[in-house]
């Protein structure tokens, strides 16, 4: 017997990372801004997207959404009421979306071509742990956090908050009855991801939603500018 050490140095999620990198190139080439929305179950992703899709459409933006769900198509039906094309990704018990699922659902999506979109929103499975490891090739990862779930969420799920590009605090209309400590929440987010853009919102009162739309517009323009640079 001879003992031998074989060096592998291989990423365990390498396949997902490669697929995500290919998706990212496709999004950039198509000039579409892709956003991956993550949160714990019930933080308000679907409600936030219903509002966002409806409002963006009113303003003439071309939008679509992919929605991941463990078992049902309830969220897809809610989002489709906005009039935007929506495609359901049933994960059958898998606790996150991955790049392969996204690729499969983009291909053969009747009536939807990436090049014809300004924004593609992806509602991930409600889970603050596993989706943080799976890159979907998104341009912006948005983490949502509702006022009812505790100011220390960012400290409990640092991987997710550290990997996000923007944070949305939802259900601000419930802040007072819930005794929401706004200052502690902002501080905790800032400890985990210093300088991250934070939106304090409610789809019931509409507070903060205008700032969120402004951010989307800003980011899309910034990226398309960069995109044109590459095309030349």
């Amino acid at each position, binding site marked *: 017997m001879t003992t*031998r*050490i074989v060096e592998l140095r291989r990423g365990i999620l390498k396949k997902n990372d490669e697929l995500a990198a290919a998706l990212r190139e496709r999004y950039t080439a198509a000039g579409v801004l892709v956003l991956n929305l993550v949160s714990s179950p019930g933080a308000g992703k679907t409600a936030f997207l219903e509002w966002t899709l409806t409002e963006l459409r009113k303003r003439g933006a071309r939008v679509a959404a992919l929605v991941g769900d463990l078992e049902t198509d309830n969220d897809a039906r809610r989002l489709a009421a906005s009039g935007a094309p929506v495609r359901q990704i049933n994960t059958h018990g898998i606790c996150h979306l991955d790049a392969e699922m996204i690729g499969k659902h983009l291909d053969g999506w009747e009536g939807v071509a990436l090049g014809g979109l300004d924004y593609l929103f992806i509602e991930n499975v409600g889970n603050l742990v596993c989706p943080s490891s799976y890159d979907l090739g998104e341009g912006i990862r948005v983490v949502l956090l509702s006022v009812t779930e505790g100011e220390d969420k960012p400290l409990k799920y640092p*991987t997710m908050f550290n990997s996000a590009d923007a944070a949305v605090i939802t259900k601000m209309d419930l802040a007072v009855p819930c005794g929401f400590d706004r200052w502690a929440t902002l501080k905790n987010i800032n*400890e985990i991801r210093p300088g991250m853009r934070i939106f304090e919102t409610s789809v019931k009162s509409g507070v903060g939603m205008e700032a969120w739309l402004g951010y989307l517009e800003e980011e899309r323009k910034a990226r398309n500018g960069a995109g044109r640079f590459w095309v030349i």
Partner: protein
Amino acid sequence: MHELSIVSSVVDTVTETVAAYPGARVKEVRLRVGALASVVVDSLEFCWGIATEGTALEGSRLVVNVLPVVMHCVPCGKDVELEGVQSFRCPKCGEPCLDLRQGRELEIDSIEIDEMDEAEEKI
């Protein structure tokens, strides 16, 4: 929560690798896992026995090397190691850190195998 699928992926990769060494027995599998990889080391170990059963990895040991978060601090002009994952500030100067240099790794580092020698193979 996806530890079992991670372990299964490790088993698949190692199985493919050892196929190049006929008759070899896997003794140890070493992983590098960043403190921000959102993987629970205990769960990996817990799944190991079940996931390796009936494979070339059966009876092997899983060794997980946890890597601390390393950020580049601009004011200090160097890479600094964070003590945990509760505050992304430079432990030396207190400035917020944005530039992650280590901590998200999730990889198979190496494996240790017992290879049959040629003489033994002939027997």
